[in-house]
């Protein structure tokens, strides 16, 4: 279609990396705005692209409270002008299906033109992080989510959208002229004996605000939600997290040995603490904030925190955001709630991305904060993780082969 042709031309100029998925129909374009939810059907072949279907919902429809989505960032506008004019000449034999026959010399010319202003709207990754911290999944789960859960597909959310700024008219013209023996269909105008031309003009008007292409990100829904900008094939919206690396398996095993069955978030009193905070601050993000706050300080008090301790006991503070970021980061990698609890119990918290230097000592407990250390990821040198673990929890015996 003319619409698809225009999108291809625009994407060729603006999206060299191919991260944007073209919208296949002008009629469905409105469902691909930033924050809109999409259902991706299971694709049974690697030879064609998977399909994204609009579910006519935005992320706000599954989160509480029912507040508008944050604003998006806008790049552009980009002015795009595409004019193609080509002429072919040759001997052709055209059969107008069931209508007649055209044979002889002919010229076929085709042209298309489109001039448009487009802009790229995108949701900044930090916006997703903030949204995650402040808004939780609606309870009870919306009915649509329950239906989608049984649908077998994955839910995606639009993080970028290429949008038209102004209304644009796209015209595509094809013209054929010829001479020779004709038995022409009625649509063809005769211009003297043995000559004629056939013209076809297609025009499509794309309204302002139409989405031409989008970038989807996987939405994961479990006890909490997340948006994965770079998901791997094993990650599913309603499915299990990918199997843990041997490194994490080792950590889990360690957690089981050292903390046993009592090492759960409930055993640490996080939930009760969080509830208290929620009541005190009456803030939508207090639950998550308080949970991170509690765990951070417990770990810090034991002197095992490998990063910054919170400076203030304010769940809305920036430091809390660090702590929550740490927790979130680990939650993404965690294989299970118990595994996370075990790591948290032993203070294996990765250093946060810090906007400034952490305090030298905790103002509440007075202990020294170890800073500048980071927990090695699974890809680190063999044995390094065990050393880091030993460092973090000195009571754990150093493996003999180290």
């Amino acid at each position, binding site marked *: 279609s003319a619409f698809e042709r225009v999108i291809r031309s625009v994407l060729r100029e603006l999206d060299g990396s191919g991260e944007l998925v073209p919208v296949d129909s002008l009629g469905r374009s409105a469902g691909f705005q930033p924050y809109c939810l999409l259902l991706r059907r299971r694709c049974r072949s690697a*030879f064609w692209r998977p399909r994204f279907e609009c579910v006519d919902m935005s992320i706000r429809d599954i989160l509480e409270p029912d507040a508008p989505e944050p604003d998006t960032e806008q790049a552009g506008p980009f002015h795009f002008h595409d004019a193609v004019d080509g002429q072919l000449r040759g001997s052709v034999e055209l059969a*107008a299906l069931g209508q007649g026959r055209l044979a002889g010399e002919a010229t076929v010319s085709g042209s298309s033109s489109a001039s448009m202003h487009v802009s790229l709207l995108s949701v900044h990754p930090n916006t997703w992080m903030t949204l995650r911290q402040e808004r939780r999944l609606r309870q009870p789960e919306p009915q649509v989510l329950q239906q989608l859960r049984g649908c077998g597909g994955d839910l995606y959310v639009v993080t970028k959208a290429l949008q038209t700024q102004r209304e644009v008219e796209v015209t595509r013209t094809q013209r054929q002229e010829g001479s020779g023996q004709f038995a022409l269909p009625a649509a063809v105008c005769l211009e003297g004996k043995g000559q004629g031309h056939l013209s076809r003009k297609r025009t499509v008007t794309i309204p302002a605000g139409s989405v031409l292409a989008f970038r989807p990100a996987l939405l994961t829904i479990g006890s909490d939600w997340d948006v994965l900008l770079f998901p791997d094939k094993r990650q599913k919206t309603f499915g299990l997290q990918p199997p843990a690396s041997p490194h994490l398996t080792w950590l889990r095993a360690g957690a089981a040995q050292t903390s046993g069955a009592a090492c759960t978030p409930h055993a640490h009193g996080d939930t009760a603490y969080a509830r208290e905070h929620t009541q005190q601050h009456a803030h939508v993000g207090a639950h998550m904030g308080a949970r991170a706050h509690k765990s951070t300080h417990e770990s810090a008090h034991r002197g095992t925190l490998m990063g910054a301790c919170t400076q203030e006991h304010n769940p809305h503070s920036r430091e809390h955001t660090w702590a929550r970021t740490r927790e979130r980061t680990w939650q993404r990698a965690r294989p299970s709630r118990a595994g996370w609890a075990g790591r948290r119990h032993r203070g294996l918290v990765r250093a946060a991305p810090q906007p400034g230097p952490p305090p030298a000592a905790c103002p509440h407990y007075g202990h020294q904060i170890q800073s500048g250390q980071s927990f090695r990821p699974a890809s680190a040198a063999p044995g390094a993780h065990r050393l880091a673990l030993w460092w973090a929890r000195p009571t754990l015996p150093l493996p003999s082969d180290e």
Partner: protein
Amino acid sequence: AAGSPAPSEAWSGLRAEVAEQARGLSVLAGELRGQLLGSLVHVLPEAEALRGLEESLEQGLRRGHVESQAGPVGAILECLTLSCRRLEEGLTEVVLYLLGALAALTETQHGLLARGLDAGALLAPLGLVGSVLEQSAPWRLRQPVSLPAQLLGSGWGPEAPAWALLQECGLELRSDAPHVSWEPEARGQLCALYACLVLLSGLSQA
């Protein structure tokens, strides 16, 4: 999910994959095959009906049974259902594969395929599409691809069904010294078109 196959596997891989699916359809008895074919002709131009059929089949596979429905969608479900109201899994997977390929095409292409299926005239477009895919493999470079004269038949121009089918994939076609300008972006759609043509023509031939 739409991974890029290795160059050596591009064309042969697609051909093998589609042939495997076509073999799955060959288990259908003649009468059922005719029923499936007749119903598909009615469902093909209806985007909503295609989506509904896919939904019903997915649900049927998950739940282990399928609900009766009226109309052409119901008739297709009947073709794929065993006496215990369970879907025949192998056949259903093939039909879902076909529906997935159809979903990659435009509504214009659906209409053209329905007309071709009805008229039993899908072999000519199949030959052309296969030829274009074979010559342009591994499908990464823009290049002109010539169309063999023996596959064009008597008419080659904007009114020919194969022309429209290829043009809808985003390819530029020329009628003089017939050839196609290959566009890498058209890969997915053309592969899907090839799969549809193989499966539908296989059904109609038998």
